[in-house]
């Protein structure tokens, strides 16, 4: 039977700029991009060059380490630029989109009649495979593995996150089809994790072949890592795959229509957005057209994703592969005269060290100022309050800093991802870059184990 899992630790940061429940179909963007940097741990090898014509579903690059994993174009058009960063690392492959999208045609088939290997082959060829990721390490799933279970987190608790019940509501059939595909991939259970606080979307309610788990609690309850930790924790050697509802729907569409159609609904959020709302877009779209005339003037930070885990992009940047949200907040970059000594009635803090506790429930406009300098670890139990797993966060971080892989293993490195530590980083009095330390630990163990 379904169970409700209550999570107490965590923190909901109340920000201004929540998306209104309106979905608009965005105009097709002029430019789209696939960013190899969205995929942790891959080494991209290009198969196209500037000037090449591609269809939606044509490969752009593959992973040198696992050449069967292809990354394909979301639209048809012409490759106009391949942007490289430091040490010539490929940052973006940019496609100038045709007005009418020409899809590469894949085989239409009923997943129920296919074998596991056939399904994997279709997913790999069509470029849908990267939608499946795995724990440990939070990287693209290895097609040679068989996961002990598959997790789908169907609600997002991050600040200003899109309502995942709202965005999938009319896609019941495609969602089920996607589930049917996934069910061939594991011998274990497919966990569909839902929020217990309000009625869930029909697509989830009617889903068959899944185990529905209900959760209630503050962020990071919606993080798949927390859910795995509570339901089916990862031990050394275990592999769990995970994905998200809109990804499941895209997979369903592939088997229904035979096309690589990564249309999804994203929330346009943040205090600097004039009308926060939902937009139906094709993945990889340039945010320039999505945000036009909808951003307040001033020096803003554009984020693909949420304020805790998202990626900083330019105002002409592209939405990242896995993100369902764009957030725009003001940049900081100002000095604060005796800022640490003032009562701070306007300042947001998880502690009650500023007088803003006098106004509970207030929604804040937060900027990107660091509010202090980097220090050594001093305060203790600060992370514990926002970290709901049975893991000692500070000790794990120290093990990573010491590069002690055996100790990292013992302390639970396999169960975590950067995003699970985002709140730790947010509340940290010493302003430690917790997420990048965790990523370093994951990369270290991954190299060691492979």
């Amino acid at each position: 039977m379904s169970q409700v899992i209550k999570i107490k630790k965590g923190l909901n940061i109340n920000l201004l700029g929540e998306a209104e429940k309106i979905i608009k179909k965005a105009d097709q963007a002029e430019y789209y991009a696939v960013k190899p940097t969205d995929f942790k741990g891959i080494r991209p090898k290009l198969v196209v060059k500037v000037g090449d014509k591609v269809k939606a579903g044509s490969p752009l690059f593959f992973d040198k380490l696992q050449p069967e994993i292809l990354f394909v174009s979301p639209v048809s058009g012409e490759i106009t630029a391949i942007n490289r960063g430091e040490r010539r690392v490929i940052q973006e492959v940019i496609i100038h989109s045709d007005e009418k999208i020409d899809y590469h045609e894949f085989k239409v088939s009923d997943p129920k009649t296919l074998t596991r290997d056939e399904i994997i082959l279709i997913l790999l060829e069509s470029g849908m495979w990267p939608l499946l990721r795995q724990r440990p390490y939070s990287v693209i799933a290895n097609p040679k593995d068989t996961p002990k279970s598959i997790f789908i987190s169907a609600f997002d608790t991050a600040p200003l996150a899109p309502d995942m019940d709202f965005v999938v509501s009319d896609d019941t059939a495609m969602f089920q089809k996607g589930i049917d595909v996934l069910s061939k991939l594991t011998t274990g259970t497919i966990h569909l994790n839902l929020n217990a606080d309000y009625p869930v979307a029909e697509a989830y309610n009617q889903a068959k072949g899944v185990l529905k788990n209900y959760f209630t609690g503050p962020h990071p309850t919606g993080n798949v890592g927390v859910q795995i930790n509570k339901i089916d924790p990862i031990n050394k050697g275990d592999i769990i795959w995970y994905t998200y509802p809109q990804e499941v729907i895209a997979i369903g569409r592939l088997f229904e229509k035979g096309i690589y159609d990564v249309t999804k609904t994203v929330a346009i959020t943040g205090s600097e957005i004039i009308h926060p709302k939902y937009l139906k877009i094709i993945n990889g779209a340039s945010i320039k057209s999505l945000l036009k005339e909808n951003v307040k003037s001033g020096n803003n930070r554009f984020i693909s994703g949420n304020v805790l885990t998202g990626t900083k992009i330019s105002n002409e940047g592209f939405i990242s592969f896995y993100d369902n949200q764009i957030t725009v907040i003001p940049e900081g970059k100002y000095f604060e005269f005796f800022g640490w000594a003032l009562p701070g009635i306007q300042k947001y803090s998880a502690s009650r060290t500023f007088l803003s506790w006098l106004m509970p429930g207030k929604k804040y406009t937060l900027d990107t100022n660091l509010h202090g300098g980097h220090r050594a670890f001093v305060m203790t139990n600060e992370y514990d309050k926002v970290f709901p797993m049975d893991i000692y966060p500070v000790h794990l971080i120290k093990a990573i800093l010491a590069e002690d892989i055996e100790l990292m293993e013992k302390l639970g490195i396999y169960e975590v991802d950067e995003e699970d530590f985002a709140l730790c980083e947010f509340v940290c009095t010493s302003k430690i870059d917790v997420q990048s330390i965790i990523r370093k630990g994951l990369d270290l163990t991954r190299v060691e184990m492979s």
Partner: protein
Amino acid sequence: MKSLRGYLDKIKPKFEKGGKFEKFHSTFEAFESFMFVPDTVTTKGTHIRDANDMKRTMTVVVLALVPALLFGMWNVGYQHFLSIGQESSLWQTFFTGFISVLPIIVVSYVVGLGIEFAFAQYRGHEVNEGFLVTGMLIPLVLPVDVPLWMVALATAFAVIIGKEVFGGTGMNIFNPALTARAFLFFAYPSYMSGNEVWTHGMMKGEGIIDSFTGATPLAEAAAGNINNLPSVSDMFFGFMPGSIGETSTLAILIGAAILLFTGVGSARIMISTVVGGLVMGLILNIFAVNPYMEVPAYQHLMLGGFAFGAVFMATDPVSAAQTANGKIIYGFLIGFLAILIRVLNPAYPEGMMLAILLMNVFAPLIDHYVIESNINKRLKRVKVQVKVQE
């Protein structure tokens, strides 16, 4: 404010690498960030950050110490006028205390911060805020008539040997303020114990009336004069001789409330320390063979440095146990040992300082076992799973 900012921006390049005053970079940085919270923005990871930083946290602790400090100043004056048998007004009393306590605070901060700045510059670090609290704690745990050169020496010892040799704030094993006190206690015992040191002017011995002994309640109790203990209300409000900031349980409780409400202090440590003290007190009551052992357990909590230690010293996050469960064990043992040492060891009339320093040493060990149990739980999970599969 704008002109100040402009001035700082103007002189800043001189303190950067290659500038004229390169050697004072950390000092400049410390003063600049003291006046202006820096304009750095997030570059990776979370895009927004909590407004709370180390300066704010330390400020809250200093704020929590203020009630104990103010009462301590008043009490210094009160005890002084009591010892010479004179009446005095509230202001006169407070001012007398203020004049005697202020130099100790100034010396503690000047010496401590001076060393901190030097070390920060030497290491190329930013100056840490930890000493803002330590610099206030040191005067509060000293007797009022301690010579100032001793304060300077003890502060220097605490900062260098207690903290900087381990790598600075965040790396130290012992609570620096207690290191300072322990240093004085063992190096200059005649200035840190006995009956004369606790009351301002008594060391000189001029005009002291005969009926005034200056003995602290703990000294009286250790001598077996249980009848000379102050009334319970005097203990609670702090009308008794003792270290500057530690006599008033009420003032300390106000500080505790600030620390707990803001989330800066650890409730686990405070409560478990009190429980540990009560348990030991009750055990002593049950097996009492002398009048001291019969002192009700709850009164122990209000005597000597117990309350101050439990609220401000044991909770120092760096030297305390760091795991949630570890904190409970750590606190309990501090309370337990403090009362044990206090009552049963005739050499030390007060056990709190030694109990905390001892548990500082054991804190990493306690954490180690707490972490081990977490690791074992994880390993057990694997075994259970293997069994199920079989």
